[in-house]
């Protein structure tokens, strides 16, 4: 199963190519879902598509390199029956996981979701739901 891991970089760590180094070292497939990053540090959301043990090893390596990691054990759902595409959630989403399509529909790209849950109560018809597992 794909693990979603949020990496938090401090300003100091942001200068080093830690991600590249770890990918090189482990050979694990890691997909960058979302990154928000500058000289002050930032966040990278990774999807690690590997057997459990291998994924665990990669996460340990990040920690050893001084990167804070957080495994996201959640799922978010947009109930399309309830959603009437008002977009109240759009501007609250920090990663662009919620976005407006060309025909003004709301679309949820769960890959980008960091489960901050700011959008959930903002939905006037409770069409956004977080489940934890």
């Amino acid at each position, binding site marked *: 199963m794909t693990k979603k891991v949020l990496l938090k970089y401090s300003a100091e760590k942001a200068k080093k190519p830690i991600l590249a180094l770890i990918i090189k070292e482990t050979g694990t497939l890691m997909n960058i879902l979302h990154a928000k990053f500058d000289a002050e540090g930032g966040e990278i959301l990774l999807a690690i598509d590997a057997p459990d043990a291998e994924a665990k090893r990669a996460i340990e390596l990040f920690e050893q390199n001084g990167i804070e990691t957080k495994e996201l054990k959640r799922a978010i759902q947009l109930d399309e029956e309830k959603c*009437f595409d008002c*977009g109240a*959630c759009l*501007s*609250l*989403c920090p990663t662009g996981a919620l976005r*407006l399509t060309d025909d*003004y529909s709301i679309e949820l790209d769960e890959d980008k979701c960091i489960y901050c849950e700011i959008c959930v109560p903002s939905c*006037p*018809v409770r069409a956004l739901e977080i489940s934890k597992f």
Partner: protein
Amino acid sequence: MNKSVAAINDRIKRGDAVVVTAEEMVEIVRERGEVEAAKEVDVVATGTFGAMCSSGAWLNFGHADPPIKMQRLWLNDVEAYSGVAAVDAYIGATQLSETRGFEYGGGHVIEDLVRGQEIEVKAIAYGTDCYPRKELETTVTKDDLNQAVLCNPRNAYQRYVAATNSRDETIYTYMGTLLPNYGNVTYSGSGALSPLHNDPNYETIGVGTRIFLGGAQGYIFWEGTQHAPTKAMGTIMTIGDLKEMDARYIRGATIEGYGTSLYVGLGIPIPIINERVAKTTGISDEEIRTNLTDYGVPRRERPILREVTYAELKSGRVEVGGKEIPVSPLSSLKQAREIAGTLKKWIEDKKFFLTQTVEGLSTDQVFQPMRQITAAPVAKDLMTREVVTAKPSDSITSAAKIFSKQNFDHLPIVDEKGKLVGIVTSWDIAVAVGTGKRRLSEILTSKVIVASENEPIDAIARKLETHGISGVPVVSTGGELRGILTSEDISKLIGRRRR
């Protein structure tokens, strides 16, 4: 060239009428000009789907046996108003459930009625010889009601302001959740599709205009409350049969931290009776401007940051102070478009005919503030001006002595110019003594929640409540300490008011 509504209806009847949506009309007028457009097009269909707080419904329950004159009543625990005849009641969109708070309100009751769901009715009465009954409990669906009529005192604002937030905290408003430090922008209204913006001179819209309302055919029957046509903020009162409506276009809503409302789908057909009207229906999102307003300032007159167009707003990003800020529409543009499309189809299918209005709506009405007989008190009216302060360089011991003599728990720390630089509490002192600190500068809290001299007491009271604090230093615009205001000072005022 001039066309009459009757002639347009004849064309609809014959199947000859040319009906376009307001979005399509923008292109037609842009390409061919209003003169050609007026010849070609008969009707422009508009649409909007937004939260319209001033909505509600008249319901008639029929008589109970023994009969009751409802004095107070609740529908699914949401209070309705029965200050009229025995079994008539009005349920308003923003009235909150007494058991479920913000999660359920009048708007949800109305949606549930439209959906055909059972509604719990509870009523009490004082009892009279003709209406002896004092209590009633039953359940009804819309089919059990004699009348269930959506009757809205204010719908379809021509346009509305856009909102953002200068404060360093998230705020929850009827314009949605606004992130700190201009973190996002919200707006409402469908821009080029906006019903009233397509006929801002009210040449065709008036008392008696037949409209799309919640999926049924309804009517405009008066100007709406706060109607302000000279500011491009016109509004309308509307009526339609709830029993014929579709819950797709009538949705109860919770606005986080604000309350409940009702999303209403509304579309007005604009008969193209002349070239002026053709021109106004050709209005584009680029031409519709509104004010980006700072909802961080909790006053009637909120600061305006800049003007924005609906085109910018609909693009999803607006520039504020050199930064691109994400935007939320709040109204559903998709449903607005769908409504205009449905209205167009109804007319093409000869299911909907236009009406000749029986009276115009005001074109010069203005929206005035409330008459108030007392100025709202502000911080400087109630604050204690004589405040004992300390300097950052003062010793813990000297500060401890102040606490021993004073009856309050916060010691403001000011610099040599009188500017507030922090605050120290008795608890800070105790900890400092325990950890061997010496100077106040080592322990002061520099992030202090403050009030400004002219800040209204009501806003400060809310601040104290939200942050769970008992008082705030009051500072000048330059940051100098001017006084202290405590929740006790505020309670005294409220006590006076209640007497």
